[in-house]
């Protein structure tokens, strides 16, 4: 399983081509094969993050074919939900994270989301964003982009934005954020094929993201972050997001401090799969 997870190689197609038409990329958008709860032998892990009530569960259902109950109110998903889908010969495991406004505080739902993106190191993180409330939603987006390089923004609820007369320039947003931005109306399954394509390209490395990083106005902070992330990089060469770890340490995050002290931070990146398993068990136990 481990060898299948070569993230940089786009030619990882070990999965037997049993599904014929369904897996042929020419057969777009039909090459989405909804696998429901069948998550065996996945090639890539995809996390689904976003503010509450932006339609994460709807996107989740559209991709996996599952019918997780979606409610029109915040806080519907408090634990994680998982499902699978297959696209262009690759099998994906999709993890629906609780909706949060930020990843900086300490409530249980935020911790579940933060821990998964940081320690679970998904191959792609989809950030579902409410197009009608872009400013507030970008707060979370920027925080996610601090943690991971491989992200896709799903600009959902475009119909409502249109209804309110808002125009969102997704190309400019994509350029500014440095990650693919896909406009969508998940309830009507609009934009799902484009989203799949973007996920596929980021997962296989065809698209390389250059995510926006938060700019700090204060030079003291900038220097502190640079100094600390250099140290973290040298102590844990496998950690891909030393800058975020530095930010959290400076913010006094106890959990991250523990992970550094116990050396767990380094192990997580090398034994990725076990870590995900452990984390799943830990989260289950809550």
């Amino acid at each position: 399983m481990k060898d299948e997870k070569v993230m940089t190689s786009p030619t990882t197609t070990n999965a037997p081509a049993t599904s014929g038409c369904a897996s042929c990329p020419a057969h777009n958008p039909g090459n989405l094969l909804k696998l429901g709860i069948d998550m065996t032998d996945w090639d890539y892990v995809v996390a689904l993050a976003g503010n509450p009530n932006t339609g994460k569960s709807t996107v989740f259902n559209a991709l996996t074919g599952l019918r997780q109950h979606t409610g029109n109110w915040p806080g519907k998903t408090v634990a994680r939900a998982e499902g699978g889908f297959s696209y262009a010969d690759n099998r994906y495991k999709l993890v629906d994270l609780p909706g949060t406004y930020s990843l900086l505080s300490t409530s249980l739902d935020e911790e579940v989301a933060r821990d998964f993106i940081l320690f679970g190191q998904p191959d792609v993180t989809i950030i579902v964003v409410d197009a009608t409330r872009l400013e507030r939603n970008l707060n979370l987006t920027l925080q996610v982009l601090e943690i991971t390089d491989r992200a896709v923004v799903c600009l959902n609820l475009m119909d409502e934005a249109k209804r309110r007369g808002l125009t969102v320039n997704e190309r400019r947003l994509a350029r500014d954020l440095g990650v693919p931005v896909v406009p969508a109306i998940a309830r009507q399954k609009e934009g799902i094929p484009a989203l799949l394509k973007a996920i596929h390209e980021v997962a296989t490395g065809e698209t390389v993201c250059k995510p926006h990083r938060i700019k700090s106005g204060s030079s003291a902070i900038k220097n502190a972050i640079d100094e600390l992330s250099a140290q973290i990089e040298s102590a844990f060469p496998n950690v891909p997001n030393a800058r975020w770890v530095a930010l959290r340490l400076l913010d006094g995050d106890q959990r991250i401090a523990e992970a550094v002290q116990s050396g767990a931070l380094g192990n997580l990146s090398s034994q990725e799969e076990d870590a995900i398993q452990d984390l799943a068990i830990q989260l289950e136990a809550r």
Partner: protein
Amino acid sequence: MTTISQNEITPDDIMASVESLRWQVGRDFHDKLMEDIYTDATKLADRAVTRPDEKARFDLDHTIDRIVTSRIWGFPLMILMLAVVFWLTITGANYPSQFLADILIGTIYPILKEFAAAIGMPWWLDGFLIDGIYLATAWVISVMLPPMMIFFPLFTLLEDFGYLPRVAFNLDNAYRKAGAHGKQSLSMMMGFGCNAAGVISTRVIDSPRERLIAIITNNFALCNGRWPTQILIATLFIGVLVPPYLAGIVSALAVVSIAVLGVFISFAISWGLSRSVLRGEVSTFSLELPPYRPPQVLQTIYTSIIDRTLPVLWRAILFAIPAGAVIWLVSNIQIDGTSLAEYIIDALNPIGIILGLNGVILLAYIVAIPANEIVVPTILMLTVLVTGSSGGEGAGVMFELDSLMDTKAILTAGGWTLLTAVCVMLFSLIHNPCSTTIYTIYKETGSKRWTALASLLPLLLGFIVTFFVAQIWRLLFPA
């Protein structure tokens, strides 16, 4: 040696630099960081979004919100909305209920009995399987399925439309005044579906103190398993007090009163807890009111059947099977010519009478600890046993219930009065949570003490409330 130690940075080194650097960046690092993020987000959003130049159009969402969350109209509208939902449920469920009872009990049951007799099945096996297990299951299906098929889709439509967060918004202030977290209103909304789900949903509350309050009081949100009991008893005993054309609406109002009473009790208990064992600061939070969205009717009906109706029904059947078996056994195991059930009921009767209930009801609540859904079927089966008013089927057997009024006839024969009905409705609202919820509370709190408190406090309160209601009632209306 020295070069190596210089190059290799240990976790302790990192923590040491963190300590010194944290002094450098200052104590307001977190605030500065948040400020930077907000500044960036605002800039990016401004670059990407073009707003219409025209003045803000008429905003339908905002107008609806102003009405449904207004100080004056918020609560009356909420009660009206609930009443309409129950009225549709009560009036709509009658015919399909009767239809199902005709098929399952009127037609299939005699066929099964004949078949058993034809193959020479011993009487105890036939009684255990068909009179016990099959009849209990059939009863649960015919009584519960129709109201659930109407109630759950309606409730889910309200949820999808976006009304539930407005209810939460209306209740939020009251919960804060009670010393609890405003988000408790959200977990209460979940509890109206299932208390176990409601308890899990308290995870959105950050403060452990407020989360415990929300967990302990979630039981007072009337759950799926208890709605059918409330609806049935209200129809049988309260709807009949008024002329037939008013019966539906009056029964619906009775159920709504019970649900609203539950919300008030949750305020009161939250208030009490936050001033005694769970004292502390009240946190603030912002509740986002989502836009109204036209519900997707067909999909909603589908998911509400898949996610709510079928699981609830399945659970009811799952627990009705052993319960039916237990009821049949305690009714047929005899000591000195008296069945075990009668011994237990006689022992519980004095306590039951004081509470405006009776021994049968208390025994039914004990049998129904695993699932509130089977309270009414159990009461009926036990009542038939005690009063002997059976259709000749023998002990512990439910006979054919052609109409709701037959159900009432059984209960009346068992000594039920209007007081009994009221006390059952109250006790159904205020008693211990079902075993699934208790287990969930234990898993969420990880504490036996809090679990015990969350289970026993409602039970005690149920006893107190029904006791006083019964005593005052008997003073006012001496028999």
